């Protein structure tokens, strides 16, 4: 996409990119460095004290060795968060892929394609918290689902696990973030050369063979990008876990929030570094499956 013949035309590129770059230097790079530095600081009840100690880390992992084979709090929290990641990832992948596949290959007119894609996009532009609380009248104790099930004599007592439960957390994640799968996979599919499909068809491929041998491999970049989005969002989330879990379900992101509410910045920073490490590890593993850089 770079046009070499524009290189010496007009304002130099670095100057144009400078304001953009400075924003990320001031509000992203420096803050991240500070998080790492402060994670090694000491603290007391009301302030953080510059130092170089590993207190925040040792406290975070406290009892992890002695309590073996039982898992300590932090490992349990990360294991539980990872479980949510896996469930939400699998669901959004199946839903996102199916929707993108439908839009890309079964809708004939481009206008219709764009309209339907927009229909999927619009909720993404509205408030996440509103979309979370909008499940309350459906899933609550006296909500529509329970009313309907009791009315149909399927159950006698209202189901308690519908709201403020792991179920509602996972449901809200899928509801909120399926778009992050639909968009990149749709984008990848739209780039597939239609002649490849024709060729496969002419060579006698069934619909299923076409899907598994042509479309899925060529959609891999979109799948990878969507997967990274969804997994990192769930890993770092504390709002969905808080609102939909009734503040009762632990997560890696909530562990940081709890420390912050107590104004314990160094332990919060240490937890942030651990979270960052865990997230990077997951991305590195995914990157081994698909070379994201090459595919962009």
């Amino acid at each position, binding site marked *: 996409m770079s046009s070499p013949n524009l290189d010496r035309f007009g304002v130099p590129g670095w100057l144009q990119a400078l304001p953009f770059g400075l924003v990320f230097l001031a509000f992203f790079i420096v*803050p991240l460095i500070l998080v790492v530095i402060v994670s090694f600081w000491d603290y007391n009840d009301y302030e953080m004290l510059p130092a170089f100690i590993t207190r925040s880390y040792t406290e975070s992992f406290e009892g992890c060795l002695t309590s073996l084979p039982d898992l300590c709090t932090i490992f349990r929290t990360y294991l539980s968060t990872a479980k949510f990641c896996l469930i939400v990832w699998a669901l959004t992948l199946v839903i996102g892929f199916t929707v993108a596949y439908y839009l890309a290959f079964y809708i004939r007119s481009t206008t219709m394609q764009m309209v339907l894609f927009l229909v999927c996009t619009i909720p993404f532009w509205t408030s996440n918290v509103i979309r979370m609380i909008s499940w309350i009248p459906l899933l609550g104790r006296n909500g529509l689902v329970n009313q309907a099930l009791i009315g149909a004599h399927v159950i006698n007592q209202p189901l308690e696990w519908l709201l403020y439960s792991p179920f509602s957390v996972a449901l809200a994640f899928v509801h909120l973030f399926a778009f992050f799968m639909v968009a990149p996979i749709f984008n990848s599919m739209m780039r597939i050369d239609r002649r490849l499909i024709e060729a496969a068809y002419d060579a006698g491929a069934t619909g299923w063979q076409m899907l598994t041998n042509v479309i899925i491999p060529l959609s891999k970049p979109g799948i990878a990008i969507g997967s990274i989005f969804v997994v990192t969002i769930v890993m770092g989330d504390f709002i969905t876990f808080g609102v939909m879990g009734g503040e009762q379900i632990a997560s890696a992101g909530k562990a940081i*929030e709890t420390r912050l509410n107590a104004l314990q910045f160094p332990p919060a920073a240490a937890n942030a570094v651990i979270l960052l490490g865990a997230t990077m590890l997951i991305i590195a593993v995914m990157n081994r499956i698909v070379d994201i850089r090459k595919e962009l």
Partner: protein
Amino acid sequence: MNEGRSPAFYALTAFFMLFVLFLYGPTIVIFILSFQGPTGGLTFPLSGVSVHWFEKLWAGGGLVDIGGAFRRSLALGLVITILTVLLSLLAGLAFRKRFPGSDLLFYVTVASLIVPSIVTSLGIALEFRLIDDLVKNYAPSWIADGFQTSMGNFTSGLGAHLTWTLPFGLLVMFAIFNRFDGRFEEAARDLGATPWQSLRYVVLPIILPSLVGVGLFGFTLSWDEIARSSQVMGEHNTLPMELQGLTTSVTTPEIYALGTATTGVSFAVIAVALFSIGALRARQARHGSDAGKA
């Protein structure tokens, strides 16, 4: 597979319709429930239809300073929109050329999307707390006296929102310039246009509808942002943050009224943006130019 409507088509259509119902159903439910009668509760049945809860919301009684939060979010959203369009456009233009550090800047931008929001928020909060400490301890007394904090909606808050809106802005710019036919610019230059003229009279008019889209991302992402805002807004919370706080404390349909109002603003902004994009496209077409069709 493109000939005739296969059974797969109908199955997938049904799936897609269920997905759309899943996306919009809950929002429609709280839209209906926000018109709950004065004696109604958080769930069905509706006990009458009224605008009682909207009136209560408007009067401001009971809830925290929603009006103030609304105005703050709106003001911040507008500033973010302008900055997102401007900075993304400049960066988008920059990335069409080669410049030192372009790879690094790209990775940093993508990393900003991927690093968990709470980590970024914490980092910015630490940064501003340290700045506060420095000012209080080392600044000359005419600054340090009476100094409270450098943290606020339009300092740390603005920065935090930009780390979220700008990556989307840049990705949209990439999509725009990927489809942009550079020959228009070359033609302009061959005809003796200065770089500024070529930008002002050739590039900008062609990409203007898409820039509205960048602005739409900027506003809506800022309008709904919580995770990054959580630690950096200082003493004044934005609307979605207040809303999140209310989810645990409010047990009347007033919260649905607030939800309907917020979603209404989002929809209004989306509608205005989509309408502008459509109008600008139509204007381009009317003027007989084949710009953007390449």
